[in-house]
């Protein structure tokens, strides 16, 4: 009975999580190609010779023969077979027969060379997409920017979230209202957050309005421009801290609520100051919550996408998710190459899994020592 009830969920998750994960890796390292094998006799049922020939290979025609092929309707029609000498993908020379459907010749009767233009579809393993990804001129900056964002955003988020949680835990009057306000960003999309911070950082935006009105600047300062990576990063960091700190806060508050008040009070009784109570009692007991939040936030940070586009347009500053989109995109700005896009997706997945694995191992080894 319970299995029946969870089955739909498990099936669904298998289809929409497990399958795409495998599929992403597959797309990234596989290519659909066509190869041709020559035949020993001018006949479709004849034995295939070893050695495959790539498409577009130019071959010498040694001999030709006009045969007949039988159609499904029972009638027959003429078909040309060519004896060719060709280089295989392993750069060996083979001689064998190929029929007119697989080769392009200028003249059926006269040409002495031809070009192989069709063959058997084969899926082969390749590092081509990965190489394309790594060699792309945006790859390094996308990787660097993504890592930089994570390194800068996460510590800020955790400090702010812990402060927010402690403020709520102190239960000032109106703490339910404060909780609601602190939680508002939970529902805000990264696109909306990006637009909000765009309105602050754009050339004629609120920050410039403020600075000029206060007389600090004479004319608006251009934050978002190709040479201003620092300012763009700052705007994105602020937008992300603004938007995504609430999730950490909620996790930390849940963690705090699970700490019995007695622990803090006994800390008080035995002489610990506020800072000592936080340092020696709250933070150690909060560690499991913080670790889970850390995994969650690190992985989610790889999804940062719309914020970047909304603030910077996506060209002067780029991140991994943005590149995934660019390579997939079938529109004007995109490269329409799902394989390279999948390579980016696979990269993100591997980094995410590695990070989770690393964190979980760290947690486990700590649990082993603390028993």
């Amino acid at each position: 009975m319970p299995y029946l009830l969870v089955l739909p969920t498990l099936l669904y998750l298998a289809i929409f999580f497990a399958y795409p994960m495998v599929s992403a890796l597959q797309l990234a390292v596989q290519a659909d190609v066509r190869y041709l094998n020559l035949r020993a006799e001018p006949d479709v049922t004849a034995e295939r010779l070893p050695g495959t020939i790539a498409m577009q290979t130019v071959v010498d025609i040694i001999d030709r023969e006009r045969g007949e092929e039988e159609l499904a309707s029972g009638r027959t029609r003429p078909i040309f077979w060519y004896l060719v000498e060709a280089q295989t993908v392993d750069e060996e020379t083979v001689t064998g027969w190929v029929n007119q459907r697989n080769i392009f010749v200028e003249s059926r009767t006269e040409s002495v060379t031809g070009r192989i233009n069709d063959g058997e579809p084969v899926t082969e393993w390749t590092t081509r997409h990965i190489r394309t990804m790594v060699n792309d001129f945006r790859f390094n900056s996308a990787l660097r920017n993504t890592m930089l964002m994570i390194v800068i955003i996460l510590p800020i988020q955790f400090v702010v979230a812990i402060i927010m949680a402690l403020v709520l835990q102190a239960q000032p009057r109106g703490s339910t209202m404060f909780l609601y306000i602190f939680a508002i960003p939970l529902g805000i999309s990264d696109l909306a957050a990006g637009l909000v911070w765009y309105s602050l950082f754009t050339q004629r935006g609120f920050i410039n309005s403020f600075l000029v009105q206060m007389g600090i600047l004479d004319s608006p300062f251009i934050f978002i421009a190709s040479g201003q990576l620092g300012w763009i990063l700052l705007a994105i960091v602020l937008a992300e801290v603004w938007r995504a700190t609430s999730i950490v806060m909620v996790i930390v508050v849940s963690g705090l609520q699970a700490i019995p008040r007695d622990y803090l009070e006994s800390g008080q009784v035995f002489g610990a100051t506020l800072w000592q109570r936080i340092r020696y009692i709250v933070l150690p007991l909060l560690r499991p919550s913080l670790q889970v939040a850390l995994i969650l936030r690190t992985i989610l940070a790889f999804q940062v996408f719309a914020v970047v586009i909304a603030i910077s347009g996506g060209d002067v500053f780029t991140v991994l998710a943005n590149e995934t989109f660019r390579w997939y995109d079938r529109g004007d700005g995109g490269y329409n190459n799902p394989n390279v896009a999948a390579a980016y997706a696979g990269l993100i997945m591997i980094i995410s899994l590695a990070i989770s694995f690393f964190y979980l191992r760290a947690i486990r080894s700590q649990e082993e020592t603390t028993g």
Partner: protein
Amino acid sequence: MLFLRKSLPPDQRWALFRNWVRRMGVYALAILISLWILLPIWLIATMAFSTRSNVRSFPKPFFPDPISTDTMQFFLNAEGILSSTGNSLIVAFATLALSTIIATPAGYAISRFVFRGRDAVRLGILSVRAFPIVILAVPLAVTFINLGIYDSLWSLALLHTALVLPTSVLVIASVFASVPYELEEAAQVFGCTPTMAFFRVVMPLTLPGIAAAGIFAFVTSWNEVFAAVLLTLTNRTLPAQILFSLDKASDPFKFAGGFFMLVPSIIFIFFIRRYLFSMWGQVTK
């Protein structure tokens, strides 16, 4: 402000003063953080309700003067906005319905039955919660193209459902767990079948929580942009439509669009605030 009382010994006044400072510090921090969250929302709302000429002006006013729906109207009348809003609603409602239908039985099973592998199921569901949609969207888009269901709102809803399903299951499980099993047993003792007991006793008690999970699904779908731009071409959802218009769009369009996307989130968070902790706070070991 007891610490001002002169009759108290100095060490006590000092202790009271420190208490007072600490309490005021908590307030100051709470207000500061609230401002940090609310101020940007206020500013973009200011823009959304100014005239378009005010939006373009510099320096920008910090209060809308005059208040006008000009900018919002301009945004809503822009090409593709209304239809994409409709698309977004369709996808969001489909996600809500589908995720609720699939997640409710699973949540019930996890909270009510002790079965072999329950912890594994829980952990599995929990661990996919954080999975980046970036990874899922590309291969699924390719698959959908191969299956001929690309550029369809329904296939996007399928993906969004996958996205919210783990959280929905966990929230609904915690909602069911809050209704004691004894109530169901009591209903059965007094003549209900197990199914009747579920619908007459458990359902009414858990409906608000399940609704909250549904709202969560709705908001997630409404906000989601990456899969939306990948999986749709002509049937764009609102975030996808805005994202694609950004490079050509004027500031009034961007500000009004940002505000328009923000409003439902703020309202929905208000309705599900009781369930915040079961939704995002669950840290099961």
